[in-house]
């Protein structure tokens, strides 16, 4: 017994061994933590990517594959027939170009107007500023769905102080065209404009005042200062807002449905009717098969967004992190 005790004592006294033991313990702890993190991250990435992979793989399924219970993920007889029909009924090239043009032009207006308004709020003092900024927050918080009916009515019988009625004889119906969306965006009330104004406001507030003072001393006018100095400095948040508004505008079906925008301009609206179209025109009645066409169409619709995102994702995520949402 005594010898065992003394051996234990020896082991305890051995500093070298104690060091080793501690290092081992911390190594194992680190490894377990690493494993834990790996499992969680890989798992969650799978949850996010799983359906995307599923859609891509099933868009290549042929009829035989989709009826065969043995086929999982990898089709036995891959076919491009789904893409052929989907792009035919989406009128892909034409719709895509006009859809991208629509989203990009609205994006340009959004960046221009929202940065201007954000700059006005960030740098100038005027009476009622706090109340007005509270209105911007209200715009973010109140969902557009609350005011969809009045908006619909406004644009169904569009008139500015009776001027149009004077010229044309009656108010104009602007629905079923993209004009309402442009009007709303020009007046800073487009899709999620409140959020963009907020982002720009936070960003401009973070810039040092000395920049403008120097410009003022050097004799630059307000507009020159804004366009040539401030806007150039706001590039990171401009990139963030640009991508957000481009992608959300491209994906938006709410306004497109509300203003009855033609689905040859908005591809994400057109995709929602593609199964019905194919079902009637091609006499395909099995919903499981129709779903495959929808999958192919969705892959086609996703392609441009994913390309934009992959190209700009680094600037984008860093922009979100550094430029304002947080403040």
């Amino acid at each position, binding site marked *: 017994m005594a010898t065992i005790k003394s051996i234990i004592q020896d082991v305890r006294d051995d500093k070298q061994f104690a060091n080793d033991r501690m290092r081992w313990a911390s190594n194992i702890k680190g490894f377990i933590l690493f494993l834990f*993190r790996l499992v*969680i*991250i890989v798992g*969650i*990435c799978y*949850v*996010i*990517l799983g*359906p*995307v992979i*599923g*859609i891509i793989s*099933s868009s290549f399924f042929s009829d035989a594959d*989709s009826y065969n*219970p043995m086929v*999982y993920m990898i089709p036995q007889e891959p076919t491009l027939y789904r893409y052929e029909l989907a792009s035919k009924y989406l009128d892909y090239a034409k719709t895509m170009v006009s859809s991208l043009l629509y989203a990009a032009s609205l994006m340009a207006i959004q960046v221009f107007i929202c940065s201007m*308004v954000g700059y*006005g*709020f960030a*740098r*100038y*003092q*005027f009476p009622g500023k706090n109340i*007005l900024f509270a209105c911007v927050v209200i*715009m973010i*918080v*109140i*969902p*557009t*769905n*609350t*005011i*969809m*009916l*009045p*908006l619909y009515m*406004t644009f169904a*019988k569009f008139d500015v102080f009776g001027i149009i009625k004077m010229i044309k004889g009656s108010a104009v119906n602007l629905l079923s065209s993209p004009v309402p969306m442009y009007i709303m965006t*020009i*007046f*800073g*009330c487009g899709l999620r404009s409140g959020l963009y104004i907020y982002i720009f406001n936070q960003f401009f507030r973070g810039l040092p005042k000395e920049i403008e003072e120097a410009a003022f001393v050097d004799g630059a006018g307000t507009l020159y200062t804004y366009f040539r100095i401030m806007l150039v400095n706001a590039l990171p948040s401009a990139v963030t807002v640009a991508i957000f508004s481009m992608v959300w505008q*491209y*994906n938006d*079906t709410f306004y497109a449905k509300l203003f009855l925008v033609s689905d040859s301009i908005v591809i*994400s609206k057109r*995709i*929602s009717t593609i199964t019905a179209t194919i079902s009637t025109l091609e006499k395909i009645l099995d919903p499981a098969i129709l*779903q495959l066409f929808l*999958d192919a169409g*969705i892959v086609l619709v996703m392609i441009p967004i*994913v390309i934009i*995102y992959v190209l700009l*994702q*680094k600037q*984008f*995520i860093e922009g979100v*992190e*550094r430029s304002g*949402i947080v403040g």
Partner: protein
Amino acid sequence: MNRKKKKMSLSAKRSRTGFLFILPWLIGFIWFYARSLFMSVQFSLSDLSVSPGGGYTLDFVGLDNFLYAFRAHATYKQVLTTSVGNMLIDVPLITFFSLFMAILLNRKFRGRTLVRAIFFLPVILNSEAIVDAMDLARNMMSGGLSSASAEMAQASSGGMGIAYYMEMFGSLGIPEFLIVYLMGAVTRVSDIINASGVQIIIFIAALQSVPGSMYEVAKIEGATTYETFWKVTFPMVMPHIITNIVYTVVDSFTQSDVVELAYNTAFTESNYGLSSVFSLCSTAITCLILVIVCGAIQKRTFYYN
């Protein structure tokens, strides 16, 4: 005297310039938002009939629409309570999940950029059609149509279903509402992950704005990782929890069934007054929730600056 006059005119000039900068937005806000909110209230108090040519006439009916919505309408109360209930379940889950993921992703490891890009993907792919198709694909992932029916057969023939686990945890003395809550959380895990892209990014940014010297001090004073989290990290990101809650609540409201019901009531059933009632009531409830939650958190929030 002369100098004072000049200074005043400069500040007045600046205030005018600032006003010009926000003018487009101000016009839009009054024209589209303020006016529309007023019109919504007006619609909700009247019986609206569309006359040919795009115009409409309003007949004032008082609170009839409200009474109808809450007393007689078949589904509104149910849809409203489920939507609000789901929102109340989701908000804390999404907030804590995104905080947890932000802490995990804030460390440096290989492939971090890729992982962040993947986490943000649901925000990019948020189109209605894409989301619907993804939901369907998620169900199909478990093996397509044929195995779905097989699974259903298995579930009905007993085995280890959710009921079994509920009974097991119930007999441990865990309160039932907690089990139901957790089970709900488990079944909605993919919804929660997909809804927390923006929140994760906001929290990552918040974590990066915590000064490193604070962690150094905590380390020197001998705080453990656990203590550091609760005494340093958590208070510092507290203000952003409010931002995230606001974002989550608004987001989940916009995608809830109430909105769909209001849309259908207006554009399929042409009952505009009732639709306005639906929208207004659910907006009021959302705002009430926001005010209560934010007020409660604001009191406990610590502002560093």
